[in-house]
């Protein structure tokens, strides 16, 4: 046992901190404890010690998903940032993209800037779009701006110069000067975060890094002290890979969307253990629903945003819609039934919680129809008030002229329509047919809606993972060490194909490659290249893989692959039009193969599955169905629909015509007509 390797996933949520430990021999231990929002590291330290309880020594690696940076940003609790840019662009962070977020709002509300107006400094220097120096950066200018920044005494310094993606020298000299000034500043040059063009997006992303940097640094230091007995501490990144704590402290901007990323990685890995690669993850919570599409791997985007600010770093492409279990149903001014985006939240919560909520929610509709069992909610910890739910639904029914069950069914149909539209955005709009994908459902209400949604979208497979309430922590456990880099090139692809052209392109990526290998250590990471291309004149580029050949010196022309993809996405090929190489992207990754194969804990069965009967309304009026406790299902067990499967963290509905089987501990629910 002593040579067993240990890996621990830790997810800090608003209410609970989830800890899951897995040994290389396949053993699993889980622990759930209350979070300690004042200092999240306290619950983590306690939780990790708890899972080591029966062992003599602590060790192994901890992979942590943290919302410390996210919260610092959203609550505006970050550090004081000095912003340094090219002279003439000091107001860059206020210029944004000049559009307003809501087309028809008379009071235009823009997110407040992270930097004060008085601490933005212009430096005399200028590059052109090719990176050629128009005005050199003088030593005097460097010295002067370091002095000006020192006078305002910030916590962090952010540098973003115009066209620095094409030539980093000026930014590097400034960064070096700030770092050697003898002050304790968190210094970020924009090209250390993202070396791609579009100055506002790059400046905003870099500013987020500087803003959350000091907070994240202090937090990781505290956490490191609490976990001094483990061998290694890693942090989940918004792109679903992980990086060491030092990297996370230096570039915390990569963690601000890591919360939802853990769930998506967990969903993708769950599906993989069932040999399913095409996945739409579906995380339905109290106020909103997150959906994301994966083809063997989560889809990334560099057009992410948080709190209205763009993030030009790779993040998992997650689409959020304001419909969840707590979403309030109402009748609009024209007489149509609407659900969300207003939510009853956790307090007072849905009417059924009996805490004074009186407006009907999605959860109340489920209670009325019988799909949530009042005495078994949260394992019986909270009893649901059926009468209050019914009364709330009735109020709406009076306005609509519908009966209680009709109203409740309507609420679910409308919520489903909003969620189906979200799934269309990430699938059809991006050129993927949802019918070829499995819906992996988690979050409090995921299992209640998954079958219905799959049916509406003609999808034939639904997966409800084991430990649905711990899926994010599972995702952390399964994540790979990974770095992603991109560099803007902006050259016609035909100029990059001959031998000198290839050499030049190769050189653009050399520093990133060396940095990845240096930082990630042994064993050497695999390096995967993609390029993004577009027809000259377009703005949106399409990523295609690059084949660098065995000796990694020559690559084949990516243009045919680009045209195929363009045709698939947009329905046409612009014949004869030159193709432009926009960005080079490098992924450095060490796959954690050998771990994901381990099975989740065996479930114990007491022989025959025998469910209780209950009456629920699945859309066609009250129907008697079997209610089965998930804990009673052993590997290979089969449950034909209609049925309801309950567990501590959620309820799954198996519709008529569908059938659930337990595979690798997960519930695999398939449409009998198509499978």
């Amino acid at each position, binding site marked *: 046992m002593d040579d067993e390797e240990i890996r621990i996933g830790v997810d800090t949520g608003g209410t609970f901190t989830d800890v899951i430990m897995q040994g290389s021999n396949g053993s699993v231990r889980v622990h759930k404890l209350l979070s300690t929002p004042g200092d999240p590291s306290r619950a983590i330290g306690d939780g990790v010690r708890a899972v080591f309880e029966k062992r003599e020594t602590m060790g192994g690696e901890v992979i942590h998903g943290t919302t410390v940076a996210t919260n610092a940003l959203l609550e505006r609790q970050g550090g004081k940032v000095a912003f340094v840019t090219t002279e003439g662009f000091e*107001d860059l962070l206020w210029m944004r993209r000049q*559009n307003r977020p809501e087309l028809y709002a008379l009071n235009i509300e823009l997110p407040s800037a992270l930097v004060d107006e008085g601490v933005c400094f212009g430096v005399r220097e200028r590059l052109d779009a090719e990176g050629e120096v128009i005005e050199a950066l003088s030593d005097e200018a460097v010295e002067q701006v370091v002095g000006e920044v020192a006078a305002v005494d910030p916590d962090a310094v952010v540098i973003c110069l*115009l066209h620095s993606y094409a030539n980093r020298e000026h930014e590097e000299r400034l960064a070096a000067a700030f770092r050697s000034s003898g002050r304790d500043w968190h210094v970020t040059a924009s090209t250390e975060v993202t070396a791609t063009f*579009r100055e506002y997006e790059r400046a905003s992303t870099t500013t987020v890094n500087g803003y959350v940097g000091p907070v994240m640094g202090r937090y990781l230091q505290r956490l490191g002290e609490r976990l001094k007995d483990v061998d290694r501490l890693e942090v989940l990144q918004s792109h679903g890979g992980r990086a060491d704590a030092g990297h996370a402290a230096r570039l915390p901007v990569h963690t601000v969307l890591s919360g939802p990323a853990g769930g998506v990685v967990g969903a993708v890995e769950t599906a993989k253990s069932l040999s399913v690669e095409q996945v739409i993850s579906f995380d339905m919570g109290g106020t909103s629903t997150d959906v994301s599409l994966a083809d063997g791997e989560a889809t990334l985007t560099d057009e992410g945003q948080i709190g209205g600010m763009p993030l030009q770093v790779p993040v998992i492409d997650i689409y959020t819609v304001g419909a969840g279990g707590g979403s309030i149903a109402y009748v609009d001014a024209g*007489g149509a*039934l*609407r659900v969300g985006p207003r939510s009853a939240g956790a307090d007072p919560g849905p009417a059924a919680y009996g805490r004074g909520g009186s407006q009907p929610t999605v959860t109340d509709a489920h209670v009325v129809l019988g799909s949530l069992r009042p005495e078994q909610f949260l394992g019986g910890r909270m009893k649901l008030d059926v009468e209050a739910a019914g009364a709330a639904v009735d109020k709406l029914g009076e306005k609509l002229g519908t009966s209680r069950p009709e109203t409740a069914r309507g609420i679910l149909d409308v919520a489903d329509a909003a969620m189906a539209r979200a799934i269309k955005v990430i699938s059809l709009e991006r050129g993927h047919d949802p019918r070829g994908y499995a819906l992996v459902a988690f979050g409090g209400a995921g299992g209640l809606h998954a079958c219905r949604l799959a049916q509406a979208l003609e999808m034939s497979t639904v997966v409800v993972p084991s430990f649905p309430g711990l899926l994010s922590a599972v995702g952390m456990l399964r994540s790979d060490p990974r770095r992603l880099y991109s560099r803007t090139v902006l050259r016609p692809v035909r100029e990059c194909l001959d031998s000198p052209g290839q050499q030049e392109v190769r050189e653009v990526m050399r520093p990133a490659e060396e940095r990845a290998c240096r930082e990630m250590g042994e064993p050497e990471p695999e390096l995967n290249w993609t390029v993004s291309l577009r027809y000259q004149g*377009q703005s949106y580029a399409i990523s295609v893989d690059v084949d660098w050949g065995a000796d990694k010196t020559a690559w084949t022309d990516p243009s045919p692959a680009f045209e195929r993809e363009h045709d698939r996405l947009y*329905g*046409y090929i612009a014949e004869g039009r030159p193709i432009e190489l926009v960005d080079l992207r490098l992924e450095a990754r060490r796959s954690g193969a050998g771990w994901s194969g381990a099975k989740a804990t065996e479930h114990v069965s007491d022989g025959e599955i025998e469910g209780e009967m209950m009456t629920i309304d699945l859309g066609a009026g009250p129907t008697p169905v079997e209610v089965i406790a998930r804990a009673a299902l052993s590997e290979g067990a089969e449950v034909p629909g209609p049925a309801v499967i309950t567990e501590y963290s959620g309820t799954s509905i198996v519709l008529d015509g569908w059938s659930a089987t337990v595979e690798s501990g997960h519930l695999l629910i398939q449409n009998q007509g198509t499978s």
Partner: protein
Amino acid sequence: MNPIELEVFRHLFASIAEEMGVVLMRSSFSPNIKERRDFSCAIFDASAEMVAQAAHIPVHLGSTPMSVAAARQAVEMSSGDHVVLNDPYAGGTHLPDITFVSPVCDGEGKPIFYVANRAHHADVGGKTPGSLPLSKSIDEEGIRISPRRWDSEIEEQILDASRTPEERRGDLMAQIAANRRGIDRLSEELRRRGDTLLSAATALQDHSERFMASTLEEMPDGSWSFEDQLEDDGFGTESIAIHADITIEGGRAVVDFSDSAPQVTGPVNVPRAVTVSATLYAFRCLADRQLPSNGGYMRCIEVLTDKGTVVDAEAPAPVAIGNVETSQRITDVVFGALAQALPERIPAASCGTMNNLTIGGDDVRRGGQPYAYYETIAGGSGAGPGFDGASAVHTHMTNTLNTPVEALEHAYPFRVERYGLRRGSGGSGRYRGGDGVIRSYFFDTPATITVMTERRAVGPYGLAGGDAGKPGVNRVIRADGVDENLAAKQVVDVEAGDRLVIETPGGGGWGELKNGVESRDC
């Protein structure tokens, strides 16, 4: 149709219109379309009433239905046809906006839905690059296309007319691709749902009408008037009145522009379609944001115009910039009247001009190939009861993005030297108007510049005792240091070493200053 199905179908139609928009934005070539998003996509029923529109550009709200109506009237469409048009006097707005209308047909080949998209092309010919010239007739503004079936002949004509034919070819392909996507998705839904789709479209329009009627019913009944001016037409006619008399009664509104000035020599005239759009936009802002965007709510608002006025021009009056400038003033006038009905809701005037700038010349970096660049520059928004205005944002009839400086300098042979807030330009008051923008450009090769701006003499009005925002300024600073003030509308040549500086208006302030104290936007 019951209230539940209504909502299910609303999502369905809206997601199709949005998907069309994604195809157009991502695969197009003009910065106007792909970066600035000056386009819109919509679905219409067989009678050309809008069923769904992706939220894009307000100026297209009321004008695309007229395009579809004109296309239907001119061409008997069958499956596979696309009708193209841009004629402001036959369903268009101004010539750079090219619209495609395509039918979705039933089993007998009869159109039952139409999909349409409109996109702003960077150059369609005319006397100056960018096709927003200081013109005296529409004939000087570029190629004029009455509704006709799309074929290689009209494609060649458009390419011939444009200074940038390759970019045009790409954008036209993207526009057709967007309509095809809409047709495919609607056809799939028709196969799946049959005639329900048709009755759903009607039900959604009726729903939206009830929605707007209930919004209007909540407003006090009465009549209010407001007048404001366009400063000039570029040819010496000044103080061109836009006048609105609004009557609200029993869930309906009548907006009468009959007392507006006669049409003028310069290109600030608009076809009626633009006036309708600007009016609908203002009312749309009063309704809950959940109001579905379709033709139903438009039934509650009647717009009256007189032929031959600046708000309902007749051919061959020039209209190039009416779409972008006069539309803003129409909005200001409608809000000015509504502020008397709803003083607790309506803000002071915003920037009131899109600060249109067109730069053209030969790109020495690309072997002297001609280029045409167009952009609009944001300003300040008006303060309102309880809120300060926002700075450096596009307001009312436009919401286009800026072109990133790094993208601009990659594509065009001039540089941006300064881009920042114009501090102190917002009108003061209990609530402060938002600040405008200062943007300056440096040229190292000769270029022709066209500025088409408004609010250069008098700033956007304040309300409830608040001050007006500062008017804008256009200047050229010559290489030898000579500083030339430009007119609000002017064509000017620049040489190597010259600079252009545009300062945009701030928004109006709201409310009187109490003891000299104002709330500050922090």
